[in-house]
């Protein structure tokens, strides 16, 4: 199995959108895909057409002492998805402290006994905790998402400088950076993208996701832009990123 971990440099940069779109494209390319939401914001489920009021998910199952993986389901497009679930802050902290030991994630993934050609896509929060650290350490490739903004640039430098995610993972062989929400007609966006490319060189994926109203509309329709507007520029960019990921693993 190939484990892809997607993390935002800061929240709101479009991680759940990227995970939802890439997973569906990989599934369309006859890959087996399992998406595991490890982000307590619990937003990813809305890209997979779950009811807004549906609080189910693996974390809620654990809090209520039920089997965590029974929260998973297969979407219409074939992607298998395990939502996080709606739990409050106290329950989340208690879960991290009392239920998630240091090998919890990899033990659970191995126990799922998935076929070898399965892609496991982990959606993690930008903040570090027991879960996100395990996801970063056990993944085969880390995709760190950033907007072409000065705020993200500042976060990036701090993150590399302080070795925020640990073990020099920021610049390790398995870490790559993806620019999202790039506005084609914004001078500062274009210039910040240039600065990021200058610094990250071959750590940056050669496809950027441009800002596109279709992405917002797709979310409002509870679907992905690759289904909602397949000919849009962003849908094409998501396809190119998926091909890049497949190339990376086949190389």
């Amino acid at each position, binding site marked *: 199995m190939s484990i892809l971990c997607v993390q935002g440099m800061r929240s709101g940069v479009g991680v759940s959108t990227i995970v939802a779109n890439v997973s569906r494209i990989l599934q369309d*390319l006859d890959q087996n895909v399992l998406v595991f939401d490890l982000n307590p914001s619990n937003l990813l489920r809305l890209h997979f057409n779950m009811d807004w009021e549906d609080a189910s998910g693996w974390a809620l199952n654990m809090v209520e002492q039920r089997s965590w993986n029974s929260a998973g389901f297969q979407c219409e497009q074939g992607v298998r998805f395990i939502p996080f679930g709606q739990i409050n802050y106290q329950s989340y902290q208690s879960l991290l402290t009392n239920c998630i030991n240091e090998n919890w994630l990899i033990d659970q993934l191995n126990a799922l006994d998935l076929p070898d050609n399965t892609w496991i896509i982990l959606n993690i929060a930008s903040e570090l905790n027991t879960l996100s650290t395990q996801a970063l350490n056990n993944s085969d490739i880390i995709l760190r998402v950033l907007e072409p903004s000065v705020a993200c640039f500042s976060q990036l430098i701090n993150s590399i400088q302080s070795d925020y995610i640990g073990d020099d993972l920021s610049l390790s062989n398995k870490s790559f950076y993806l620019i999202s929400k790039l506005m084609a007609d914004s001078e500062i966006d274009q210039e910040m993208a240039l600065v990021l490319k200058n610094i990250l060189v071959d750590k940056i994926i050669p496809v950027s996701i441009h800002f596109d109203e279709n992405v917002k509309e797709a979310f409002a329709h509870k679907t992905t832009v690759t289904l909602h507007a397949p000919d849009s520029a962003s849908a094409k960019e998501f396809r190119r990123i998926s*091909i890049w990921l497949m190339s990376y693993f086949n190389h």
Partner: protein
Amino acid sequence: MKWENNDANELLKSANIKANNYIEIKENEAVTKIKKKWPLVDQIMSFVVKNSANRKDRTI
């Protein structure tokens, strides 16, 4: 699903990754112009340049 992928080779090339244990800035006209224009960007980039020099000093 099929699609045209004229850039497949170009994309594949970028999967050849070289390990890098520090970051640096390649000074060029465009970068200088950006630094002059945005003071906060200039501050952060100056920090990177200073730190990159320190890292190189340590490895020599």
